[in-house]
């Protein structure tokens, strides 16, 4: 993987947190440690060199340092994307921000804007195969366009700064920028126009629609601005969700196994731990994939329903007939609660849930889930002495 010039930004040089952590995953008060989004160590893209992914040659004057890049993706590009989907090297999957050339763009070539998450960069350059265009890559600290727009890093200030820094006014004769629609939460189009003279056109949601957008006189069809959430869209999110829960699974699963081992012996401990792992996996993987087919709008309710099905499966196929009444009730309380929690957590990945809705679900759901788990533990303890 040819990603060089990765530069760590330490605390002293870190970008203002109002940009870094704001708003993604809730209101984010702009504190140093806010929210789940982004590690404390933020990684920036560094400077453009001849080691940028897909580098072919330099164009223009040497001082400009504008690389011409390939539009075809290599095996390494695909492998890197696949690894990022599994959370491997994901927070460093980044390219340097700046101006790139695709084909042989002249002063009238369109300017497309994207973020410097390498997967975004690859998708856009790949979609522009066989064309002449400028690609303006913003410093989003290796975060995709949509999440970066939510944080404000794919934003008005960075866009204005990057236009000036890359000499775009001299490079092109027109004054139009093509932005991804999902970048709009961070960019104020009228502000950009006021400050740079460039008008902003929100082209499409998906990079794959860029060819037809460019071929049809830059018209955004209603389809191009409709966001979906297909089974495939949901499926590719599951691996990284599993990886991100591994730590808590190991912690709680291990504690549960030890406690059950001491109280009930190896056999019971194994069943209980597997029951717990199944509930987590149902919430993290099964609910997201089967999302449209599980009844209800609330993610907590969808999760709880899936958890009941998981509990019933266990009861039927893992010797439920021999369980005591207290164990059975405990299983049907705790497992749906655990599943509901992880299903609710998936709201952060969807393309259609609102923070207000998530807040409402949490206000109602968290006390219910907590009570169910506590009641289940009490029942197991009581059942031990019956």
């Amino acid at each position, binding site marked *: 993987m040819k990603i060089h010039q990765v530069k760590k930004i330490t605390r002293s040089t870190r970008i203002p947190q109002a940009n870094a952590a704001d708003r993604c*995953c809730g209101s984010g008060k702009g504190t140093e440690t806010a929210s789940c989004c*982004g590690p404390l160590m933020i990684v920036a893209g560094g400077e453009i060199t001849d080691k940028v992914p897909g580098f072919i040659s330099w164009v223009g004057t040497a001082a400009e340092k504008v690389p011409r890049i390939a539009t075809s993706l290599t095996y390494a590009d695909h492998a890197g994307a696949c690894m990022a989907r599994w959370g491997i090297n994901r927070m460093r999957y980044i390219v340097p921000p700046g101006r790139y050339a695709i084909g042989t763009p002249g002063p009238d070539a369109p300017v497309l804007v994207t973020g410097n998450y390498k997967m975004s960069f690859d998708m856009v350059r790949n979609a522009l195969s066989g064309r002449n265009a400028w690609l303006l890559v913003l410093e989003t600290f290796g975060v995709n366009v949509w999440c970066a727009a939510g944080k404000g890093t794919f934003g008005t200030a960075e866009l204005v700064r990057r236009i000036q820094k890359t000499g775009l006014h001299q490079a092109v004769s027109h004054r139009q920028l093509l932005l991804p629609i999902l970048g709009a939460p961070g*960019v104020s*189009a009228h502000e950009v126009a006021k400050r740079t003279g460039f008008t902003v056109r929100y082209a499409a949601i998906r990079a794959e629609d860029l060819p037809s957008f460019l071929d049809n006189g830059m018209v955004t069809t209603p389809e191009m601005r409709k966001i979906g959430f297909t089974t495939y869209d949901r499926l590719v999110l599951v691996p990284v969700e599993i990886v991100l829960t591994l730590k808590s699974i190991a912690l709680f699963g291990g504690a549960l196994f030890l406690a059950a081992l001491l109280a009930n012996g190896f056999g019971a401990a194994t069943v209980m731990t597997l029951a717990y792992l199944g509930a987590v996996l149902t919430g993290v993987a099964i609910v997201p994939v089967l999302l449209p087919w599980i009844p209800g709008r609330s993610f907590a309710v969808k999760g709880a329903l899936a958890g009941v099905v998981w509990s019933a499966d266990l009861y039927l196929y893992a010797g439920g007939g021999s369980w005591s009444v207290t164990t059975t009730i405990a299983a049907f309380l705790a497992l749906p609660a655990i599943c509901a929690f992880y299903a609710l957590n998936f709201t952060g990945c969807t393309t259609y849930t609102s923070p207000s809705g998530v807040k409402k679900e949490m206000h109602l759901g968290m006390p219910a889930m907590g009570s169910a788990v506590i009641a289940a533990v009490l029942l197991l303890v009581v059942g031990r002495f019956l």
Partner: protein
Amino acid sequence: MFGLRYLENVVTLRLNPAGCTGCGRCVEVCPHQVFALEGRKARIDDCDACMECGACAKNCPVRVITVDAGVGCASGMINEWLQYHNIRRGGGGSCC
């Protein structure tokens, strides 16, 4: 989106049509087709489809749209809550 509608009557999106110039930016940026243009005014057509991303408010040149924007994931909110109550400081994680 088939089967994918979120909770009803929770969204904080508001539009004051009085100042609207009908520029259509809100229609252009909304990925859920919440807005429609009627004559020279925008109106909210499908409020419950709004995911509160804030793109419309950010791009409204006359600032007649308001929304409590955010991405909103449960673990982020829990972390905020824990930090607010000083139960946990910082934390790694990397959801998006």
